[in-house]
């Protein structure tokens, strides 16, 4: 009985995650012990400190390649880079979450327990928002970081739940339009739980095939297992459903528009940037490490999913009349482009990560600017209300135009350089059909973006055109960083491309 020995633990490798997890727990304690009036300041400082400390430790660890804590965590170049992406995008998204100048008390409801439009709800309209949002954000980000570096499917599942659960919660905490927000939380939660069940079932079947849930062991068992391939195929299919759900790929995308629309916009931004990075980090790792040798089996399926995602996302984006839904469909289409990177395997890992960075910054800036267009009822997200904003707020409109052009993939923006990098590496990997569909769908997808630009500048402002609020420092910083990144990565992308390519790939031993 006394032969239970802890496996060797490389604490340095785990440090970024341990810092974020630990400070999230400290945040929970702060919620209990810090007086109400200081809570916001304490929580915001803690959160920012955790994210920055995590990022610093990730940078210190940059050359680490190690599998530790019983094989549960694999720290490698790509994993560290993904962790870095999540942390950087998390820091930027933190700016939107902590913003309290646009609206009294911030974007989150003070007491979610009051039923929407009840007496208590009306009373709390001007109260400061719930500060639990900060530790929850930290938990979510820590979960995403673990998701990208999990060495076995069980740890990956736990990480998936750790980052999903806070998101389900935070989706339901909007200060305005609470019923819509709660509906989105419920939809996300139910469908997410359903997808988790698929993931878990897939893990069980793969365990039946490989006799292990470790990614490396699965790869090995593919080569020398004598079990029926049906188990592996079925397990892989179910596993992929769970992963593709989080990545919002067609046909597992139906939650995306409703959730993006209903969730508080800072949380939508967090989901669009960080969760996308985490989900594709996980997808890339699973397919590159565990199933690289079985690519003949799954490639046609994932190719079909990628094509469907690109086509459905871009075509449905054209018909949208709400800016948040439009961005949601655009995020679906972008998931399709990223899937091209997954299908292309090894060679496209770097360019996929580059795409995640570029898209993350742009989408954060886009949602940051969505929070600025407001009327008496909060954000005015219907596109018709955006008509003619360019006359009254040229600076805002100019920046939004840059972001839209970036999404549309116009040269000299990050959208162009990232798509170019991704498609060229996919072309090298002989995925020409996917590249063709990708290019065609980006042309289709450019249409709704340009429609918004036309709406902003060329349409006359109506009576109901809302005002663009004066942003606080935090939102200003977020939008500034996002727009700047969109331009810099478009004009001079080579340094980051060098970085992602030198970050190496996934450790598969």
């Amino acid at each position, binding site marked *: *009985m006394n*032969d*239970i*020995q*802890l*496996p060797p633990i490389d604490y340095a490798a*785990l440090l970024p995650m341990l810092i974020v*997890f630990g400070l*999230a*727990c400290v945040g*929970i304690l702060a*919620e209990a012990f810090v007086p109400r009036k200081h809570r916001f300041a304490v929580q915001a400082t803690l959160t920012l400190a955790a994210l920055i400390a995590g990022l610093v430790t990730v940078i210190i660890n940059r050359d680490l390649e190690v599998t530790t*804590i*019983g*094989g*549960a*965590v694999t720290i490698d170049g790509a994993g560290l880079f993904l962790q870095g992406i999540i942390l950087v995008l998390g820091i930027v998204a933190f700016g939107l979450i902590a913003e309290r100048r646009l609206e009294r008390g911030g974007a989150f409801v003070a*007491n*979610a*327990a*009051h039923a929407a439009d009840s007496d*208590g709800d009306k009373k709390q309209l001007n109260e400061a928002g*719930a500060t*639990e949002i900060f*530790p*929850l954000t930290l*938990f979510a980000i*820590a*979960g995403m970081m*673990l998701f990208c570096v999990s060495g076995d499917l*069980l*740890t990956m*599942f*736990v*990480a998936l*739940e*750790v980052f999903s*659960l*806070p998101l*389900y*919660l935070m989706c*339901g*905490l909007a200060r305005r339009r609470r019923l819509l927000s709660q509906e989105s939380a419920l939809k996300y939660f139910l469908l997410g739980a359903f997808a988790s069940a698929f993931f878990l079932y897939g893990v069980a*079947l793969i365990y*039946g*095939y490989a*006799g292990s849930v470790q990614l490396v062991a699965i790869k090995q068992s593919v080569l020398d297992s004598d*079990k*029926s391939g*049906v*188990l592996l*195929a*079925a397990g892989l299919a179910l596993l992929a459903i769970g992963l593709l759900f989080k990545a919002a790929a067609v046909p597992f995308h139906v939650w995306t528009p409703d959730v993006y629309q209903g969730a508080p916009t800072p949380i939508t931004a967090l989901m669009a940037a960080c969760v996308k990075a985490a989900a594709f980090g996980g997808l890339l790792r699973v397919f590159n490490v565990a199933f690289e040798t079985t690519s003949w089996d799954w490639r046609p399926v994932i190719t079909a999913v990628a094509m469907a995602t690109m086509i459905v996302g871009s075509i449905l984006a054209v018909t949208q009349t709400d800016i948040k839904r439009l961005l949601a469909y655009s995020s679906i289409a972008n998931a399709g482009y990223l899937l091209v990177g997954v299908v292309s395997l090894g060679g496209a890992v770097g360019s996929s990560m580059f795409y995640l960075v570029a898209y993350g910054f742009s989408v954060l800036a886009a949602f940051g600017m969505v929070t600025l267009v407001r009327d008496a009822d909060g954000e005015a997200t219907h596109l018709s209300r955006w008509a003619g904003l360019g006359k009254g707020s040229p600076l805002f409109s100019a920046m939004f135009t840059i972001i839209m052009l970036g999404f549309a993939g116009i040269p000299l923006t990050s959208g162009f350089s990232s798509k170019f990098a991704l498609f060229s590496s996919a072309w090298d990997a002989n995925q020409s059909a996917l590249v063709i569909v990708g290019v065609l769908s980006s042309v289709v997808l450019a249409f709704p973006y340009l429609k918004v630009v036309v709406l902003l500048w060329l349409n006359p402002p109506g009576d109901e055109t809302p005002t663009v609020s004066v942003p606080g420092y935090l939102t200003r910083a977020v939008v500034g960083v996002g727009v700047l990144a969109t331009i810099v990565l478009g004009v001079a992308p080579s340094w980051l491309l060098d970085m992602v390519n030198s970050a190496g790939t996934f450790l598969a031993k």
Partner: protein
Amino acid sequence: MNPALTGVLADGGVTTGEAVTFWILAPIALAGAIGMVLLRNAVHSALSLVLTMLSLGVFYVLQAGPFIGMVQIIVYTGAIMMLFLFVIMLVGRNTRDSLIEVLRGQRVAAILLGIGFAMLLGTGLARGIGSIPAVGLAEANVNGNVEGIAKLLFTRYIFAFEVTSALLITAAVGAMILAHVEKKPGEKMDQKVLSRARFEKGNYPGPKAGPGVFATSDSVATPALLPDGTFTERSVSKVVPARELTIAEARPKAVNGSKEYGAIK
């Protein structure tokens, strides 16, 4: 492990006891699962699920996993399903699914797809594992089942185990956020304050009058009559909407044995 207690042979074969138990409980488990979906009454539905989970617990015990089997029964049937029942009973026994389909044909499509998925998975599994002998049970339980699980939890899966605490903290915080209204200092009324407020000037300290009970109606929505013949609004709860009663509601309630009852059904 003592094979007589677990019913599992060391070579992974199946004893008669195990086979008999399986073939009795497997149909029950399936029936429970199907009943969960089909039964209209929410409590019956939850009970069917309890039945399924109980059978699963027994299966785990049968397959030499007594710890996980018991935990399944204690946690899932004992606690989680009990919470489900709690909520269902709080919401009310007459709450039933609305039969209106929001998406046309969705029910049929769901049934077809569900059956298709089950067949696909079932045949796949039958092909995949039908001929594979079970191995590794003896090694896994060599020091006892509980010890085996403990060893795995605290060695290979220690990180997942520890990270699960983040999940639990999130769940607890989430429950607090969604259900707990934080009282501001001074807002909380204790017994002393309440009783003092009750005897404040301008407040009537006695119990409120009950709702009216007349020969025509015994509904709680009927206000009581004051001695001067007017209604008193104090006798009707604020949450009861003021409205005209239907004939069925105004009719007296059923007594044991009588055929007709309107207001309750």
